[in-house]
Every structure is written in C-alpha cells, then in structure tokens.
C-alpha cells in the first residue's frame, strides 16, 4: 500500500516537472506567424512571406526510410533564392540551419546551397514548407513544417 502511494507520488512529480517545462517552453519559444518564414542572420530577424516567394516546380528523387527511391514533383523554391529574397548575399554564408515548428532542425552547407543547388523548400498541400535535400542517402534532412532559417 505504502509502495503504491510512493509510486503515485513519483508519477505525479514527473508529470508536474514536465508541465513546468511545457509552460516555460511555450512562453519562451519564438513564434512565427502562419504563412511566413523567420530568417535569422547576424543577430537580426526578418520575415519572408511564403505567398510572396516565386515557386517553381521542384523535381528529382529522394530516398525514403526503407531505402526506396521516391520521385518528388511539387512547387518549391531553392534555399538560395529564399536567402536572396530576404536580402542576404548567399555567396558569403557558411551554411543554413532549417528549423521546424517542433524545433527539429537540419544543417545545410553553403556548397549544397550555392554550387550544387541541392537544397529546396517544397510547398506542402497544407501551405507549410518542407526541406528537401537531393542526394541524401536517407530522409534525415527532410524536415517538415519549416518555420525558421538560421543563417551562419
């Protein structure tokens, strides 16, 4: 009986601590307005409206979790063009960190953005954008619901 009480107290404490973390996280996280993309560069924040970006058809093949090739054909824009639209000189950057709404992020190198032009933001049916990096051996960097680009 005493042991069961102790277990319930431990469960309650764990849930309480998590609730505290949730409150802190929800109050301190950077919120990005729907339909826009936050770009952080040299300590400055700027927003790009997704609707105002000129999207063209992005096509190619990526590899899924099972190792199968999947054909991609959907509207999108290269990361390079997004940076140019935000007024950033894409040739002078070291790389970009693409961050999703759930804080999952992927790093993209400068070469992948500029010389090889492998990284794209593809528009999904629900209006959000996902990162596509062609040539990757898996979908680790195919981050959905990108809300923030941190330019290094």
């Amino acid at each position, binding site marked *: 009986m005493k042991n069961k009480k102790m277990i319930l107290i431990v*469960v309650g404490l764990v*849930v309480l601590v*998590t609730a505290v973390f949730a409150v802190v*996280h929800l109050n301190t996280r950077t919120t990005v307005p729907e339909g826009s993309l936050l770009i952080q560069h040299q300590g400055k924040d700027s927003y790009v409206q997704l609707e105002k970006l000129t999207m063209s058809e992005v096509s190619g093949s990526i590899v899924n*979790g099972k190792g199968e090739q999947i054909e991609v054909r959907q509207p999108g824009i290269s990361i390079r063009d997004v940076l140019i639209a935000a007024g950033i000189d894409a040739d002078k950057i070291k790389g970009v960190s693409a961050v999703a709404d759930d804080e999952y992020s992927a790093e993209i190198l400068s070469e992948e953005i500029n010389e090889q032009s492998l990284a794209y933001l593809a528009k999904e049916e629900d209006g959000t954008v996902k990162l596509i990096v062609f040539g990757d051996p898996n979908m680790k960097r195919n981050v959905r619901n990108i809300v923030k680009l941190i330019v290094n």
Partner: protein
Amino acid sequence: MKRIQLRKLLYMAICCDLGIISKRLISPFANVLTDALHVPGGIGTSFSLMFLVIGAALTDTFGSGLLMGALQSGIALALGATGSLGALSPIAYMIPGIAIDLVFLLLRRAKKETAVMAACIIAPLTASLTANALIFQLKGVVLLLYAGIACSTGALCGLIAIPLIERLLPVVNAPSWHRKKAS
C-alpha cells in the same frame, strides 16, 4: 544468459509485436499532443517500451530487454517503420532494451512494481536521449521538455503495466501441461 523457456520467448515475441502495433495506434493521438507542445515526439515510444518492460518483467531474465529491442528493431526495419531514424533505428531500439535490463538488475532486491515503474520511466528517457543524439539535436528547455514528456508518458504507462504484470505473472509461471500430467 540462462536458458529461457519457449513459453517465455513467445511472450517476449508477443510483447515486441504489441509494442510496435501500439506505437502505430497511438501515434495520431500522440502527434496532436506533441504538435501542440511543439516538440518532435516522445509519447508513442513510451507506449511501445511499456510492452518491453512487461516482457522483461514476465520473463525475469537478464538480457531479455536487449533481445526484445533487437527483435523490435528487426521488425521495424522489415516493415520500413523506422521513422526518421532510418538505418540507425537498431541502436535506438536496443539502448532502451539495455536500460530495461540494467534497471531490473540494479533493482532486483526492490519490489517488482518499483522496478517496473523505474524501467517504464528510464527506458523512454534513454530512447529519447538516443534519438536526440542521433537525429533531433535539441538543446535547452526543448530537450528538457522532450525528455520530460517521455518520462511522464513512461510513468503513466507504468501505472498500466504494474497491474498487467500482476495478472500475467501467475499465467506465465504456471506449471506446463506435461509437467502437470507427470505429477
């Protein structure tokens, strides 16, 4: 590792399957919660690992957690249900299995329910930290929240697992048919 009875191996196999199925079943509901909290997951895995803890508690054999973790990773790879972990998923399945084994080993003198609850909390915690190290790379409060969600869900799963184990233990440890016949 001591020899495990066939019956116990079958229970372990069932627990592995139930773990994978439960993760799939719970994931739409889990996604609603994790989307609202803006974290990349942590709930479905706890449910999945609850069955591994149940399997390990029923078989009461050191190494059963690792064995079930390895089997689950094999099933997940075969079904292509590896999620964002891809080929790294065996690591993410086996580390919580090892954690379950270690918790049961360290708490072998404690009451069974205490060990089950500890395993239900620690296994998802190790799974979330492994996924974070391999994939998510979260930092700060987000990481604490992600780990906290895994622990909380694990703790709640522990409350389900304890009575389940209490009911199943007499069935698993019941004398087998031919032994009964011989006596």
